[in-house]
C-alpha cells in the first residue's frame, strides 16, 4: 500500500490545538462555521458546522448538502451542495468538490478529505463534519471560503493564521515513532 493511500491523521499522533471558532457564513436560515484546528505533523483537521432551518419547504425530504456519501456523486453539482475551499497564503487551494485526478498526487498540492460526521434533522438540520487537509499551510493567511447557492450564501471567506497552525503542529506529540502503519505521518 502506498503511504499516501493510508488514512490519516495517523492515530499515532495526539494533535496540538490552534484554537479557531468562527462563523464563516450566516443568513437567517443557514449557518456555516468552523472550529478546530487540530494540527498534526503533516497537516491539520477542522470541524465544519452546518445549521439549517426550513429544510423541508426549501428542499423536500431528500436534502443532502455534501458531494459524497449521498445521492450526489459527480458534476454538475446541484445548488444544494456546499462548496468549501481551503486556500494557503501562497495561492495553493483545494475544494471539497475537487475530483481525485487518479494520478500520483503532488505532495505539495493541498488535499482535503472528510472524516467522521454526525447530525441530521427534519425541519431544522444540523451536521458537524470533520475535514482533514494536508500538507501544513505556509505562514500567512489560511483562508476558508464557502459558497452555497441553494442556501442563498454567496462566496464568503474567513482567514486564520497559517503560522499558528504550523507552530501548533510542531508541538503535536508522536506517540511511537516506529509504527509501521503510520508511514510518513
Amino acid at each position: 500500500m502506498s503511504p499516501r493511500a493510508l488514512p490519516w491523521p495517523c492515530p499515532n499522533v495526539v494533535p496540538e490545538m490552534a484554537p479557531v471558532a468562527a462563523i464563516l457564513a450566516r443568513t437567517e436560515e443557514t449557518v456555516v462555521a468552523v472550529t478546530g484546528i487540530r494540527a498534526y505533523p503533516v497537516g491539520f483537521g477542522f470541524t465544519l458546522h452546518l445549521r439549517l432551518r426550513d429544510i423541508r419547504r426549501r428542499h423536500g425530504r431528500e436534502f443532502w448538502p455534501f458531494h459524497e456519501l449521498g445521492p450526489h456523486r459527480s458534476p454538475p453539482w446541484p445548488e444544494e451542495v456546499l462548496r468549501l475551499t481551503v486556500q494557503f497564503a501562497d495561492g495553493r487551494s483545494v475544494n471539497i468538490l475537487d475530483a481525485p485526478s487518479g494520478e500520483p498526487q503532488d505532495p505539495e498540492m493541498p488535499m482535503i478529505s472528510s472524516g467522521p460526521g454526525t447530525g441530521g434533522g427534519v425541519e431544522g438540520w444540523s451536521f458537524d463534519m470533520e475535514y482533514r487537509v494536508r500538507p501544513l499551510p505556509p505562514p500567512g493567511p489560511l483562508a476558508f471560503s464557502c459558497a452555497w447557492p441553494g442556501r442563498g450564501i454567496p462566496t464568503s471567506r474567513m482567514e486564520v493564521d497559517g503560522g499558528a497552525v504550523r507552530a501548533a503542529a510542531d508541538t503535536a506529540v508522536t506517540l511511537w515513532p516506529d509504527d509501521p502503519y503510520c508511514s510518513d505521518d
Partner: protein
Amino acid sequence: MEVLPGVAPVSLVLARTDNIVVGLTDVRGYPNGFAFVLRVRWGLVADRDEQPPWPFPDWGSPDPLEAEPLPDALLRFGVQFADGRKVTNLDMYPFVPEGLPADQPVLVEGGGVGSEGGRLGRGALWDLELVVQPLPPPGPLAFVCAWPARGISEMRAEIDAGLILDAAAAAVPFFASEDRS
C-alpha cells in the same frame, strides 16, 4: 439555543506507557459547561490475535460498575475543580440522580467520535467525546486518570480553568436572531 463553542488551546497527554496513551484535545467552552475529546491509544501488540479491551464503564454486560472490586480493565477518568468538586466516569451520570445539587459536576458522553482496533496487532484507538457541566470556577482544573490493567497508576494534569472560561465566554449563538448581545 444552540451555540458555536469557543475553543481552548488545550492538548494534553495525561498518561503514557510503552504502548498506551491517554490524551485529551478539542476542549470547547459552552455557557453551561465544556466538552472535550478523550483520546485513548493502544499501540502495537505482539499478539496479532489479541483483542482490545473495552475500557469504558458503559455498554458492558454484566455492568462492570456493579462488580466488586471494580475491574482493572476499566479506564478510570475524572475531572476536579479548583474548589474540590469532582466527577468521574464511574459516577455514571448519564443517569443523573434526582435531587443532585445543581453545582455538582456531571460527566456525560457526547457524540461518539470513533473507535477502531483489534486488527493484526495494530492496537486500537478510542476517541470519546465527553461533556462536563457546569463550568469550573477559576483556578486549576485537573484531569485525572488511572488504568490498572494497563499499568497506569493515578495520573493528574492541571490546566488553568480560565482557558475554558474564556472559551465559554467566546461562544456565540449560531443564529443571529438568538444573539441577545
